[in-house]
Protein backbone atom coordinates (compact mmCIF):
# COMPACT_ATOMS: atom_id res chain seq x y z
CA UNK A 1 0.00 0.00 0.00
CA UNK A 2 1.26 3.43 -0.96
CA UNK A 3 0.61 6.91 0.39
CA UNK A 4 1.46 10.36 -0.96
CA UNK A 5 3.16 12.69 1.51
CA UNK A 6 5.56 14.69 -0.67
CA UNK A 7 5.82 15.22 -4.43
CA UNK A 8 9.23 13.57 -4.19
CA UNK A 9 7.62 10.28 -3.10
CA UNK A 10 7.26 9.50 -6.80
CA UNK A 11 10.28 9.00 -9.04
CA UNK A 12 10.38 10.98 -12.26
CA UNK A 13 9.33 7.87 -14.17
CA UNK A 14 6.39 7.31 -11.83
CA UNK A 15 5.39 10.96 -12.21
CA UNK A 16 5.46 10.60 -15.99
CA UNK A 17 3.20 7.52 -15.72
CA UNK A 18 0.83 9.41 -13.45
CA UNK A 19 0.69 12.34 -15.87
CA UNK A 20 0.19 9.96 -18.84
CA UNK A 21 -2.79 8.53 -17.00
CA UNK A 22 -4.13 12.02 -16.21
CA UNK A 23 -3.75 12.86 -19.89
CA UNK A 24 -5.75 9.81 -20.90
CA UNK A 25 -8.45 10.67 -18.34
CA UNK A 26 -8.59 14.21 -19.74
CA UNK A 27 -8.99 12.91 -23.30
CA UNK A 28 -11.28 9.93 -22.57
CA UNK A 29 -13.20 10.69 -19.35
CA UNK A 30 -15.94 8.17 -20.20
CA UNK A 31 -13.46 5.30 -19.99
CA UNK A 32 -12.91 6.11 -16.33
CA UNK A 33 -16.45 7.00 -15.25
CA UNK A 34 -16.98 3.74 -13.34
CA UNK A 35 -13.45 2.84 -12.34
CA UNK A 36 -14.08 3.59 -8.67
CA UNK A 37 -17.60 2.22 -8.49
CA UNK A 38 -18.20 1.05 -4.92
CA UNK A 39 -15.12 2.85 -3.56
CA UNK A 40 -15.24 5.65 -1.02
CA UNK A 41 -12.95 8.64 -0.54
CA UNK A 42 -12.79 10.19 2.93
CA UNK A 43 -11.89 13.89 2.87
CA UNK A 44 -10.57 14.66 6.36
CA UNK A 45 -10.07 18.41 6.35
CA UNK A 46 -9.08 19.79 9.75
CA UNK A 47 -8.95 23.31 8.33
CA UNK A 48 -11.03 25.06 5.72
CA UNK A 49 -10.27 24.62 2.05
CA UNK A 50 -12.47 25.13 -0.96
CA UNK A 51 -10.56 24.16 -4.03
CA UNK A 52 -8.51 21.26 -2.78
CA UNK A 53 -11.39 19.49 -1.04
CA UNK A 54 -13.85 20.03 -3.88
CA UNK A 55 -11.20 19.05 -6.40
CA UNK A 56 -10.71 15.72 -4.58
CA UNK A 57 -14.45 15.19 -4.29
CA UNK A 58 -14.99 16.04 -7.94
CA UNK A 59 -12.19 13.63 -8.90
CA UNK A 60 -13.73 10.74 -6.93
CA UNK A 61 -17.24 11.43 -8.18
CA UNK A 62 -15.96 11.57 -11.78
CA UNK A 63 -14.52 8.10 -11.24
CA UNK A 64 -17.89 6.76 -10.12
CA UNK A 65 -16.94 6.58 -6.44
CA UNK A 66 -18.51 8.29 -3.47
CA UNK A 67 -17.21 10.68 -0.84
CA UNK A 68 -17.62 11.28 2.87
CA UNK A 69 -15.74 13.41 5.34
CA UNK A 70 -15.57 16.61 7.34
CA UNK A 71 -14.41 20.09 6.45
CA UNK A 72 -13.22 21.56 9.75
CA UNK A 73 -11.72 20.31 12.98
CA UNK A 74 -14.78 21.63 14.84
CA UNK A 75 -17.04 19.20 13.06
CA UNK A 76 -14.77 16.20 13.71
CA UNK A 77 -13.88 14.28 16.83
CA UNK A 78 -10.60 16.27 16.94
CA UNK A 79 -12.69 18.85 18.81
CA UNK A 80 -13.12 16.20 21.52
CA UNK A 81 -9.38 15.65 21.62
CA UNK A 82 -9.09 12.55 19.46
CA UNK A 83 -5.61 11.94 18.05
CA UNK A 84 -4.92 11.73 14.33
CA UNK A 85 -3.72 8.14 14.84
CA UNK A 86 -7.07 7.11 16.33
CA UNK A 87 -9.11 9.03 13.76
CA UNK A 88 -7.41 7.35 10.81
CA UNK A 89 -7.89 3.89 12.30
CA UNK A 90 -11.61 4.59 12.40
CA UNK A 91 -11.67 6.17 8.93
CA UNK A 92 -9.87 3.07 7.61
CA UNK A 93 -13.02 1.09 8.43
CA UNK A 94 -15.29 3.55 6.64
CA UNK A 95 -13.45 4.40 3.41
CA UNK A 96 -11.01 3.01 0.83
CA UNK A 97 -8.74 6.05 0.53
CA UNK A 98 -8.28 9.27 2.52
CA UNK A 99 -7.25 12.81 1.60
CA UNK A 100 -6.17 14.71 4.69
CA UNK A 101 -5.52 18.40 5.29
CA UNK A 102 -4.27 19.39 8.71
CA UNK A 103 -2.83 22.61 10.16
CA UNK A 104 -0.10 20.64 11.96
CA UNK A 105 2.91 19.72 9.85
CA UNK A 106 3.45 15.98 9.53
CA UNK A 107 -0.10 15.02 10.58
CA UNK A 108 -0.83 13.10 7.35
CA UNK A 109 2.45 11.20 7.82
CA UNK A 110 1.38 10.20 11.33
CA UNK A 111 -1.96 9.10 9.87
CA UNK A 112 -0.25 7.04 7.15
CA UNK A 113 1.73 5.12 9.77
CA UNK A 114 -1.48 3.86 11.38
CA UNK A 115 -3.71 3.71 8.35
CA UNK A 116 -5.05 0.59 6.65
CA UNK A 117 -5.94 2.64 3.54
CA UNK A 118 -3.83 4.95 1.32
CA UNK A 119 -3.48 8.48 2.73
CA UNK A 120 -2.94 11.54 0.53
CA UNK A 121 -1.47 14.67 2.07
CA UNK A 122 -3.83 17.43 0.98
CA UNK A 123 -1.72 20.11 2.71
CA UNK A 124 -0.08 20.10 6.15
CA UNK A 125 0.55 23.57 7.56
CA UNK A 126 3.39 25.32 5.77
CA UNK A 127 5.08 22.01 5.02
CA UNK A 128 3.89 20.16 1.89
CA UNK A 129 1.04 20.32 -0.57
CA UNK A 130 1.98 17.56 -3.03
CA UNK A 131 -1.22 17.46 -5.08
CA UNK A 132 -0.80 21.17 -5.88
CA UNK A 133 2.70 20.37 -7.15
CA UNK A 134 1.38 17.47 -9.21
CA UNK A 135 -1.23 19.86 -10.62
CA UNK A 136 1.47 22.42 -11.48
CA UNK A 137 3.70 19.84 -13.16
CA UNK A 138 0.79 18.33 -15.10
CA UNK A 139 -0.35 21.77 -16.26
CA UNK A 140 3.15 22.67 -17.45
CA UNK A 141 3.55 19.35 -19.24
CA UNK A 142 0.11 19.49 -20.83
CA UNK A 143 0.50 23.04 -22.10
CA UNK A 144 4.16 22.82 -23.06
CA UNK A 145 4.40 19.23 -24.24
CA UNK A 146 7.25 18.42 -21.89
CA UNK A 147 8.97 19.80 -18.81
CA UNK A 148 12.33 20.77 -20.24
CA UNK A 149 14.40 23.84 -21.13
CA UNK A 150 12.12 26.39 -19.51
CA UNK A 151 12.74 29.68 -17.72
CA UNK A 152 10.34 29.76 -14.83
CA UNK A 153 9.66 32.94 -12.90
CA UNK A 154 8.35 32.45 -9.37
CA UNK A 155 6.87 35.65 -8.07
CA UNK A 156 5.53 36.92 -4.76
CA UNK A 157 5.90 35.35 -1.35
CA UNK A 158 8.73 32.89 -1.93
CA UNK A 159 9.61 32.64 1.75
CA UNK A 160 6.42 31.25 3.24
CA UNK A 161 4.74 29.87 0.12
CA UNK A 162 4.81 26.09 0.45
CA UNK A 163 3.63 25.58 -3.14
CA UNK A 164 6.72 27.42 -4.38
CA UNK A 165 9.10 25.29 -2.28
CA UNK A 166 7.47 22.04 -3.40
CA UNK A 167 7.50 23.13 -7.02
CA UNK A 168 11.20 24.05 -6.95
CA UNK A 169 12.01 20.70 -5.34
CA UNK A 170 10.09 18.88 -8.03
CA UNK A 171 11.38 20.92 -10.99
CA UNK A 172 15.07 20.48 -10.21
CA UNK A 173 14.67 16.89 -11.36
CA UNK A 174 14.00 18.08 -14.94
CA UNK A 175 16.66 19.19 -17.44
CA UNK A 176 17.32 22.75 -18.55
CA UNK A 177 15.14 24.54 -16.01
CA UNK A 178 16.18 28.10 -15.13
CA UNK A 179 14.65 29.85 -12.16
CA UNK A 180 14.00 33.56 -11.82
CA UNK A 181 13.00 34.29 -8.24
CA UNK A 182 11.03 37.52 -8.09
CA UNK A 183 10.25 38.83 -4.62
CA UNK A 184 10.97 41.61 -2.18
CA UNK A 185 14.12 41.12 -0.12
CA UNK A 186 11.99 40.17 2.91
CA UNK A 187 10.23 37.33 1.10
CA UNK A 188 13.06 35.58 -0.72
CA UNK A 189 13.26 31.78 -0.80
CA UNK A 190 14.56 30.25 2.43
CA UNK A 191 18.27 29.57 2.69
CA UNK A 192 17.80 25.78 2.61
CA UNK A 193 16.08 25.97 -0.79
CA UNK A 194 18.80 28.24 -2.16
CA UNK A 195 21.72 26.25 -0.73
CA UNK A 196 20.49 22.66 -0.45
CA UNK A 197 18.37 22.52 -3.57
CA UNK A 198 19.47 25.12 -6.13
CA UNK A 199 23.17 25.64 -5.48
CA UNK A 200 23.90 22.04 -4.47
CA UNK A 201 22.48 20.81 -7.78
CA UNK A 202 24.24 23.55 -9.77
CA UNK A 203 20.98 25.11 -10.91
CA UNK A 204 20.83 28.33 -12.86
CA UNK A 205 18.86 30.88 -10.87
CA UNK A 206 18.71 34.58 -10.14
CA UNK A 207 16.93 36.67 -7.55
CA UNK A 208 15.36 39.97 -8.55
CA UNK A 209 12.91 42.41 -6.99
CA UNK A 210 11.11 43.70 -10.06
CA UNK A 211 8.75 41.78 -12.29
CA UNK A 212 9.04 44.26 -15.20
CA UNK A 213 12.78 43.66 -15.62
CA UNK A 214 12.44 39.95 -16.27
CA UNK A 215 9.01 39.53 -17.91
CA UNK A 216 10.52 39.13 -21.39
CA UNK A 217 12.72 36.21 -20.34
CA UNK A 218 10.02 34.00 -18.89
CA UNK A 219 8.36 30.94 -20.38
CA UNK A 220 6.22 30.49 -17.29
CA UNK A 221 5.25 32.99 -14.60
CA UNK A 222 4.09 31.36 -11.39
CA UNK A 223 2.37 33.99 -9.27
CA UNK A 224 1.73 33.77 -5.53
CA UNK A 225 0.09 36.09 -3.09
CA UNK A 226 2.14 38.70 -1.20
CA UNK A 227 0.53 39.02 2.19
CA UNK A 228 0.59 42.32 3.96
CA UNK A 229 1.12 40.67 7.34
CA UNK A 230 4.45 39.20 6.18
CA UNK A 231 6.07 42.64 6.08
CA UNK A 232 7.82 44.18 9.05
CA UNK A 233 6.40 47.60 8.31
CA UNK A 234 3.58 48.96 6.22
CA UNK A 235 5.83 51.41 4.40
CA UNK A 236 7.77 48.57 2.78
CA UNK A 237 4.53 46.86 1.83
CA UNK A 238 3.13 49.97 0.17
CA UNK A 239 6.44 50.61 -1.59
CA UNK A 240 6.75 47.08 -2.94
CA UNK A 241 3.27 45.68 -3.42
CA UNK A 242 2.69 47.07 -6.91
CA UNK A 243 5.92 45.54 -8.21
CA UNK A 244 4.28 42.17 -7.79
CA UNK A 245 0.85 42.86 -9.23
CA UNK A 246 0.41 41.42 -12.68
CA UNK A 247 -1.37 43.85 -14.99
CA UNK A 248 -2.13 43.91 -18.73
CA UNK A 249 0.69 46.48 -19.07
CA UNK A 250 3.18 43.99 -17.64
CA UNK A 251 1.79 41.25 -19.89
CA UNK A 252 2.79 43.40 -22.89
CA UNK A 253 6.41 42.82 -21.87
CA UNK A 254 6.01 39.03 -21.89
CA UNK A 255 6.61 36.50 -24.64
CA UNK A 256 3.66 35.63 -26.84
CA UNK A 257 3.60 32.05 -25.61
CA UNK A 258 4.41 32.72 -21.95
CA UNK A 259 1.92 31.24 -19.53
CA UNK A 260 0.75 32.51 -16.16
CA UNK A 261 0.02 30.04 -13.38
CA UNK A 262 -1.25 30.62 -9.84
CA UNK A 263 -2.14 28.06 -7.15
CA UNK A 264 -5.15 30.26 -6.21
CA UNK A 265 -6.82 31.86 -4.34
CA UNK A 266 -5.68 35.19 -5.64
CA UNK A 267 -6.39 38.43 -3.89
CA UNK A 268 -5.13 41.31 -5.99
CA UNK A 269 -1.78 40.06 -7.29
CA UNK A 270 -3.24 39.31 -10.71
CA UNK A 271 -5.47 42.04 -12.05
CA UNK A 272 -8.82 40.63 -13.27
CA UNK A 273 -8.07 42.37 -16.58
CA UNK A 274 -5.43 39.71 -17.19
CA UNK A 275 -7.99 36.89 -17.00
CA UNK A 276 -9.02 37.25 -20.64
CA UNK A 277 -5.44 37.08 -21.87
CA UNK A 278 -4.97 33.67 -23.55
CA UNK A 279 -1.74 33.29 -21.61
CA UNK A 280 -3.59 33.32 -18.27
CA UNK A 281 -3.81 29.61 -17.50
CA UNK A 282 -4.66 29.57 -13.79
CA UNK A 283 -8.27 28.49 -14.22
CA UNK A 284 -7.18 25.76 -16.64
CA UNK A 285 -4.61 24.77 -14.01
CA UNK A 286 -7.40 24.31 -11.42
CA UNK A 287 -9.29 22.14 -13.91
CA UNK A 288 -6.21 20.01 -14.56
CA UNK A 289 -5.94 19.52 -10.80
CA UNK A 290 -9.02 17.29 -10.97
CA UNK A 291 -7.49 15.06 -13.70
CA UNK A 292 -4.24 14.55 -11.84
CA UNK A 293 -6.13 13.78 -8.60
CA UNK A 294 -8.23 11.23 -10.51
CA UNK A 295 -5.02 9.63 -11.76
CA UNK A 296 -3.61 9.67 -8.23
CA UNK A 297 -6.69 8.04 -6.69
CA UNK A 298 -6.64 5.29 -9.33
CA UNK A 299 -2.92 4.72 -8.84
CA UNK A 300 -3.05 4.53 -5.05
CA UNK A 301 -6.11 2.27 -5.16
CA UNK A 302 -4.20 0.10 -7.65
CA UNK A 303 -7.07 0.23 -10.12
CA UNK A 304 -4.84 0.76 -13.17
Amino acid at each position, binding site marked *: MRHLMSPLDFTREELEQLMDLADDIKNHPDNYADKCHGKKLATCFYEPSTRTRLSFESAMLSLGGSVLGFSSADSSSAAKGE*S*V*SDTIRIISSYADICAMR*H*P*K*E*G*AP*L*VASQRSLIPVINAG*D*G*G*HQHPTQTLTDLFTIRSLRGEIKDLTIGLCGDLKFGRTVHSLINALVRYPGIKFVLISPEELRVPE*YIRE*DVLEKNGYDYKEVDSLDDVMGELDILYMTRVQKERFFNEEDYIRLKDFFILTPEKMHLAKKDMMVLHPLPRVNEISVDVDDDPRAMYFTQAKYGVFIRMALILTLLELV
Partner: protein
Amino acid sequence: MLNISGIHQGFVLDHIKAGESMTIYNNLHLANLGSDCTVAMIMNAKSNKMGRKDIIKIECPIERVDLDILGFIDHNITCNIIKDDAIVEKRQLSLPKEIKNVISCKNPRCISTVEQELDQIFILTDPENEVYRCKYCEEKYTGSK
Protein backbone atom coordinates in the same frame (compact mmCIF):
# COMPACT_ATOMS: atom_id res chain seq x y z
CA MET B 1 41.57 10.09 41.04
CA LEU B 2 38.90 7.94 42.64
CA ASN B 3 39.35 4.30 41.80
CA ILE B 4 36.51 2.08 40.79
CA SER B 5 37.28 -1.56 40.26
CA GLY B 6 37.46 -3.04 36.76
CA ILE B 7 34.48 -4.62 35.15
CA HIS B 8 34.01 -8.15 33.89
CA GLN B 9 31.63 -7.46 31.05
CA GLY B 10 30.20 -4.17 29.77
CA PHE B 11 31.43 -0.76 28.69
CA VAL B 12 33.74 2.03 29.70
CA LEU B 13 32.79 5.35 28.18
CA ASP B 14 35.77 7.65 28.45
CA HIS B 15 36.54 11.23 27.43
CA ILE B 16 33.05 12.47 28.13
CA LYS B 17 32.95 16.25 28.38
CA ALA B 18 32.97 17.18 32.08
CA GLY B 19 29.43 17.50 33.36
CA GLU B 20 27.83 15.56 30.49
CA SER B 21 27.74 12.10 32.05
CA MET B 22 24.31 12.55 33.61
CA THR B 23 22.85 13.49 30.21
CA ILE B 24 24.35 10.34 28.74
CA TYR B 25 23.09 8.28 31.69
CA ASN B 26 19.58 9.49 30.89
CA ASN B 27 19.79 9.22 27.12
CA LEU B 28 21.14 5.66 27.25
CA HIS B 29 18.36 4.83 29.74
CA LEU B 30 20.95 3.37 32.12
CA ALA B 31 18.51 3.58 35.02
CA ASN B 32 16.48 0.82 33.37
CA LEU B 33 19.25 -1.66 32.69
CA GLY B 34 18.08 -4.18 35.24
CA SER B 35 18.91 -5.19 38.79
CA ASP B 36 21.92 -7.29 37.75
CA CYS B 37 23.73 -4.27 36.27
CA THR B 38 26.00 -1.72 37.91
CA VAL B 39 26.74 1.78 36.69
CA ALA B 40 29.55 3.98 38.04
CA MET B 41 29.91 7.60 37.03
CA ILE B 42 33.15 9.41 37.64
CA MET B 43 32.65 13.12 37.26
CA ASN B 44 35.15 15.90 36.79
CA ALA B 45 38.20 13.60 36.68
CA LYS B 46 41.59 15.01 35.67
CA SER B 47 42.52 14.44 32.05
CA ASN B 48 45.74 15.28 30.19
CA LYS B 49 43.83 15.55 26.95
CA MET B 50 40.74 17.41 28.11
CA GLY B 51 41.64 19.08 31.40
CA ARG B 52 38.54 17.64 33.06
CA LYS B 53 36.33 14.80 31.90
CA ASP B 54 33.63 12.36 32.97
CA ILE B 55 33.78 8.56 32.72
CA ILE B 56 30.96 6.04 32.89
CA LYS B 57 31.53 2.36 33.64
CA ILE B 58 28.70 0.01 32.94
CA GLU B 59 28.74 -3.60 34.13
CA CYS B 60 26.10 -5.41 32.08
CA PRO B 61 25.56 -7.83 29.18
CA ILE B 62 26.83 -5.92 26.15
CA GLU B 63 23.72 -6.44 24.05
CA ARG B 64 21.65 -4.54 26.58
CA VAL B 65 22.86 -1.03 25.73
CA ASP B 66 22.22 0.70 22.42
CA LEU B 67 25.21 2.97 21.94
CA ASP B 68 24.12 4.52 18.63
CA ILE B 69 22.87 7.67 20.29
CA LEU B 70 26.37 8.40 21.69
CA GLY B 71 27.51 9.31 18.20
CA PHE B 72 24.89 12.07 18.17
CA ILE B 73 25.66 13.33 21.67
CA ASP B 74 29.43 13.50 21.21
CA HIS B 75 31.42 11.42 18.75
CA ASN B 76 34.66 12.20 20.61
CA ILE B 77 33.67 9.85 23.43
CA THR B 78 35.85 6.75 23.60
CA CYS B 79 33.79 3.59 23.91
CA ASN B 80 35.59 0.50 25.19
CA ILE B 81 33.77 -2.81 25.15
CA ILE B 82 34.86 -5.20 27.90
CA LYS B 83 34.52 -8.98 27.87
CA ASP B 84 36.17 -11.34 30.35
CA ASP B 85 37.93 -8.42 32.08
CA ALA B 86 39.65 -7.23 28.89
CA ILE B 87 38.99 -4.58 26.26
CA VAL B 88 37.84 -6.48 23.18
CA GLU B 89 36.80 -3.54 21.04
CA LYS B 90 37.22 0.21 20.87
CA ARG B 91 34.07 1.18 19.07
CA GLN B 92 34.22 4.02 16.60
CA LEU B 93 31.19 6.19 17.15
CA SER B 94 29.23 7.30 14.14
CA LEU B 95 26.15 9.44 13.71
CA PRO B 96 22.98 7.37 14.09
CA LYS B 97 20.67 7.41 11.07
CA GLU B 98 17.68 7.90 13.34
CA ILE B 99 17.25 9.31 16.84
CA LYS B 100 14.19 8.30 18.79
CA ASN B 101 12.87 10.06 21.89
CA VAL B 102 16.10 11.86 22.79
CA ILE B 103 15.48 15.32 21.37
CA SER B 104 12.18 16.93 20.57
CA CYS B 105 10.93 19.12 17.76
CA LYS B 106 10.83 22.86 18.50
CA ASN B 107 8.52 23.71 15.60
CA PRO B 108 5.22 24.77 17.21
CA ARG B 109 3.38 23.83 14.01
CA CYS B 110 4.66 20.22 14.14
CA ILE B 111 2.18 17.42 14.83
CA SER B 112 4.62 15.97 17.38
CA THR B 113 3.84 18.89 19.69
CA VAL B 114 0.19 17.84 20.06
CA GLU B 115 -0.28 14.19 19.11
CA GLN B 116 -0.37 11.94 22.16
CA GLU B 117 2.08 9.04 22.49
CA LEU B 118 3.92 10.01 19.31
CA ASP B 119 7.63 9.09 19.24
CA GLN B 120 9.95 12.04 18.67
CA ILE B 121 11.99 10.89 15.70
CA PHE B 122 14.80 12.72 13.92
CA ILE B 123 16.45 11.52 10.71
CA LEU B 124 20.05 12.19 9.66
CA THR B 125 19.57 14.00 6.35
CA ASP B 126 23.05 15.43 5.81
CA PRO B 127 25.84 13.38 7.44
CA GLU B 128 28.55 15.78 6.21
CA ASN B 129 27.07 18.73 8.08
CA GLU B 130 25.51 16.60 10.84
CA VAL B 131 22.00 17.80 10.04
CA TYR B 132 19.05 16.06 11.64
CA ARG B 133 15.48 16.83 10.62
CA CYS B 134 12.22 16.02 12.34
CA LYS B 135 10.62 13.01 10.65
CA TYR B 136 7.21 14.69 10.63
CA CYS B 137 7.72 18.37 9.73
CA GLU B 138 11.36 18.19 8.44
CA GLU B 139 12.38 21.11 10.66
CA LYS B 140 16.15 21.16 11.18
CA TYR B 141 17.30 20.39 14.72
CA THR B 142 19.24 23.40 15.95
CA GLY B 143 19.17 22.97 19.72
CA SER B 144 22.10 21.93 21.86
CA LYS B 145 22.82 18.25 22.25
